[in-house]
């Protein structure tokens, strides 16, 4: 898994690429919490994520809660069908704000 953090307008975009699983989710979690720590709205770009397991989703949940406590937004963009199935199964599709693309989110 790789990730890139960049600023787009008033937001911080965290773009992940590859699989987010038990091995890689600790790095994803760290990247997400760092981005939240920047104090701006965070957009998580999942367009290039081929697979995300529940440890990856848990990292997203923790980052969302941390952002909310700081009065920030954290939204998801370009969620794949597979990732959406995981989110829906855990009833998280109603918890996250999900955009079709990063352009829609920023």
């Amino acid at each position, binding site marked *: 898994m790789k990730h890139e953090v960049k600023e787009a307008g008033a937001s911080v975009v965290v773009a992940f690429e*590859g*699989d987010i*699983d*038990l*091995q890689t*989710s*600790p790095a994803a*979690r760290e990247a997400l919490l760092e981005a939240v720590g920047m104090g701006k709205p965070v957009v998580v770009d999942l367009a290039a994520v081929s*697979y995300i*397991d*529940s*440890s990856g*989703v*848990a*990292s997203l*949940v*923790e980052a969302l809660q941390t952002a909310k406590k700081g009065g920030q937004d954290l939204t998801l963009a370009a969620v794949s069908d*597979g990732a959406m*199935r*995981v989110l*829906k*199964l*855990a*009833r*998280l599709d109603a918890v996250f704000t999900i955009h079709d693309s990063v352009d829609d989110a920023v």
Partner: protein
Amino acid sequence: MSETPEPQETETSAPRNVIEVRDLVTHYGDRMILKGISMDVHADEIMVIMGGSGSGKSTLLRHLMALEHHTSGTMRILGQDIDELNNVELVDLRQKLGVAFQGGALFSSMTVGENVMLPLFEHTKLDRKTMEIMTRMKLQVVELGGFENLMPSELSGGMIKRAAFARAIVMDPKILFCDEPSAGLDPVVASQLDDLILLLRDALGMTVVVVTHELDSAFKIADRITVLDRGEILFIGTPDELRASDNQRIQNLLNRVAEDDTMDAETYLNRLTGDEPAYRPL
């Protein structure tokens, strides 16, 4: 997950096999239990294994979970020949397999949440917060959201089964094994568990292998059914093909007709006196 070797397809249109068993023979002591089993389990399917008492279905399940030695034959699980794996590789493989045991097998001294979280503690180095969220997510999936602080003794039979499912799927296994998931449950709760198995397959793309003697459950959830009889495969096919079978032994199974126990007197004597060695787990 990226490091999982992908089994090779033999043809473009062929289903991908996550389990391949060829000529599997196994003994408990001198007694042959499985007599040359060959079968495949396809990715994303629900394979139900049925058979009467002593048919070898529970033994086969333990072999499919890479928990026992076999006498001869080959077994490939997620593309790996288990005879070629060392202990570390075997442990790694087992982490990709989830198991919901018949009785739930929850630790009575631990809360429901601690039980579900246990595999994460044992096999990962995830942050505690991540593990807690994963545990609550999986409890939500099995409709036990908010029950993580209860003790197993405070749960009903159906709730214990669902908690066992939550633990079995907490690490997102590639293959989920279920041993008699409906046993001891009333029909309504059993049907809810069937729905849960279907949900896990459909939503998470898990391959599910279920051992059951519950015909209603088998016909509801199975993509394919394997019928074992006295250590041999009697049938592999779809539920419709099973119903249409004119094999007398299959009809006996479907109609719940008891068959004669053909165990000879010497085998029975050895079993009673303990001269027939117990099985040998890996």
